[in-house]
């Protein structure tokens, strides 16, 4: 996927002016935020649960190598084939090779963000294999010229039912309809034969369970079950950080994940995949392959962003982020938007290709306070800002401004003089209205806001005068 994160500002500004997009984004507050709050309230002691989730993920990461090896042993013992991919290209190559060796023509995919991250669809198409997205949202995006998702859980949150009505009418050649139920039925009718004819199913995995060698997915549409049971091959692709020690651990995390993501106590489907079809079973794939993708994750494990690896991909951080709510996920310019994207994108694709992201936040910590595994997201963003400073990735006006201000702030007499002058100049600029409409070095502020002018003298001046 082409990385457009350095265009954040321009794309965010465009999205702010997009009335249709704004209407779609408005639903996040209504649906995700309110639903989560209700689910949390209903649960009771969600804080204890969050702490437990954090501990489970920390335990898994502390001995990640051991749990992954255990996972591989158990999965292989149950007949699965485990593949290790160091990067995106290797992961794609592995999947394409599995498909080629088995004469696969079409692939039915259930939703997987790691497959977006590695660019799997492009790789399959290049190899002459047709991928079919079967999650309704992902399907909509795929037929819309492979548009990228704007949210990790609700990929088409940026689209209205009207948009989908137009798209289906155009791409399916069917009469235009706007009723969501009718649109869903239309998609289902088109997708059903594709499930039945697909040679291979590709899924992600929300968790890998070390003690049983199982992969687990949570879904709401049921397409995940069809993808993983109907075709003769099932390939599950996920990041190596998704491993947890036991089924007991997963049951705790499953109490956190749907509540945080959609406000559901549990998703419609929770599917565990343990090995391929057994000899005495009637359903299931003949082969089960698990592709474990690193793609930068071990690098995080050793660094200051380590806590980010606890992430269980619920999307609560973006749902609650006022910046995300205002500009939508496409502004982030890569796979992961919102607060998680501010950290994952620079970490995976490079700080120089994502300069605005760690700064595209007010550090309000709404994200950190809803994160089900208590990732201190603003702290991590701040550390990335420090790294930007150290590597000279900040603009020279910002560096110069900071340096001058920092130098003066350490010299009280000079600072007092500077603030006295500033207070007087700004008072003058404010005029009778006491409002500054335009500040030459602060157009970012004054383009959309006035600047309330100060009183003309600093507190410390006035305080000393009063004391005399």
């Amino acid at each position, binding site marked *: 996927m082409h990385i457009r994160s350095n265009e954040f*500002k321009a794309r*965010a*500004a465009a999205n*702010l002016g997009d009335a249709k997009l704004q209407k779609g984004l408005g639903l996040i507050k209504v649906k995700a935020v309110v639903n989560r709050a209700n689910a949390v309230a209903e649960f009771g002691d969600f804080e204890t649960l969050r702490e437990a989730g954090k501990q489970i993920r920390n335990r898994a990461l502390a001995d990640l190598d051991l749990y992954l090896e255990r996972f591989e042993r158990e999965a292989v013992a149950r007949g699965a084939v485990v593949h290790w991919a160091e990067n995106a290209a290797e992961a794609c190559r592995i999947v394409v090779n599995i498909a080629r060796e088995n004469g696969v023509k079409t692939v039915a995919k259930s939703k997987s963000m790691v497959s977006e991250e590695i660019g799997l669809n492009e790789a399959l198409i290049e190899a002459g294999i047709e991928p079919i997205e079967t999650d309704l949202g992902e399907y909509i995006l795929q037929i819309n010229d492979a548009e990228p998702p704007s949210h990790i859980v609700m990929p088409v949150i940026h689209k209205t039912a009207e948009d989908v009505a137009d798209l289906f009418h155009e791409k399916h050649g069917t009469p235009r309809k706007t009723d969501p139920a009718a649109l869903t039925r239309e998609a289902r009718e088109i997708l059903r034969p594709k499930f039945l004819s697909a040679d291979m199913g590709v899924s992600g995995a929300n968790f890998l369970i070390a003690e049983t060698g199982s992969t687990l997915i949570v879904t709401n549409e049921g397409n995940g079950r069809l993808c993983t049971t109907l075709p003769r091959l099932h390939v599950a692709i996920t990041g190596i950080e998704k491993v947890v020690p036991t089924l007991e651990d997963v049951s705790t995390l499953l109490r956190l994940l749907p509540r945080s993501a959609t406000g559901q106590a549990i998703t419609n489907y929770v599917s565990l995949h343990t090995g391929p079809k057994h000899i005495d079973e009637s359903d299931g794939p003949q082969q089960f392959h698990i592709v474990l993708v690193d793609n930068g994750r071990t690098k995080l494990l050793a660094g200051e962003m380590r806590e980010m690896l606890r992430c269980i991909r619920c999307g609560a951080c973006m749902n609650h982020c*006022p*910046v995300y709510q*205002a*500009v939508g996920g496409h502004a982030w310019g890569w796979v992961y938007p919102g607060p998680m994207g501010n950290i994952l994108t620079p970490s995976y694709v490079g700080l120089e290709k994502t300069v*605005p992201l760690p*700064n*595209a*936040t*007010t*550090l*309000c*910590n*709404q994200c*950190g*306070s809803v994160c089900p595994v208590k990732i201190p997201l603003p*702290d991590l963003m*701040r550390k*990335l*800002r*420090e*790294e*930007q*400073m*150290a590597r000279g990735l*900040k603009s020279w006006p*910002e560096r110069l401004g*900071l*340096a001058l*201000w*920092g130098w003066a*702030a*350490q010299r*009280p007499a000079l*600072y007092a003089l500077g*603030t006295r002058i*500033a*207070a007087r100049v700004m008072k003058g600029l404010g005029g009778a209205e006491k*409002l500054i409409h335009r500040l030459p070095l*602060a157009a*970012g*502020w004054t*383009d*959309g*806001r*006035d*600047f*309330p002018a*100060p*009183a003309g*003298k*600093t*507190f*410390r001046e*006035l*305080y*000393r005068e009063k004391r005399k």
Partner: protein
Amino acid sequence: MRVALFVTCLADLMRPSVAFAALRLLEHGGCTVEVPQTQTCCGQPAYNSGDRATAIALARKVLDEFEGFDYVVAPSGSCGGMVRAHYPELFRDDPALLARSEGLAARTYELTDFLVNVLRLDSVPGNFSGTVTYHDSCSGLRELNIKAQPRALLAKLPGVKLAEMKEAETCCGFGGTFSLKFGAVSTQLADNKCGNACATEADAIVGGDLGCLLNIEGRLRRRGDRKTQVLHIAEVLAGQSD
């Protein structure tokens, strides 16, 4: 009780009335208040911009200036949060400074928190009359748990009626330099805040952090609202709003 007033750089430069109001409230509560004259800034702008070295230098300066007092009080959850939540992190590699910063953090309070939980004020001197709506600033709310304190204090003013706005806990979009770097996004968030605040038909929007208040007032005036007041909680409680 010797209390040092941490004026905050914004109140010093932009709105001295906030610091005078804080001073009055502390003296009303029986404190002996001192204002260290060499104070400038807590260092948060540097810290949040990734300039750790400057942040550390300014934090050391604050330690030197404010260590000798029983308490340090700031009319800001943002600066208070910097000292309490972040100074110890800044000094994590220096045991001596870490211990000093933890000591200072334990004695540093946001103004309303101090008035309610340390001084346990029975009354406040203000005389504001009208409907107010309260904006919860992010740092105060999520770093220092400032939520009930300002409301408890407002309830001590018989003329004040509190009308809660929708999404009172959502960021106003200020975010320090964010408001300059991402002006359009910041303005949109400020606009949402103004919309929610104005929907309560309050006479005044009140908050505990000057950064947010300048941002909210700036957007409010640009929207053409010259009537709704935007006040710091200290100004309302002390009765010195102009």
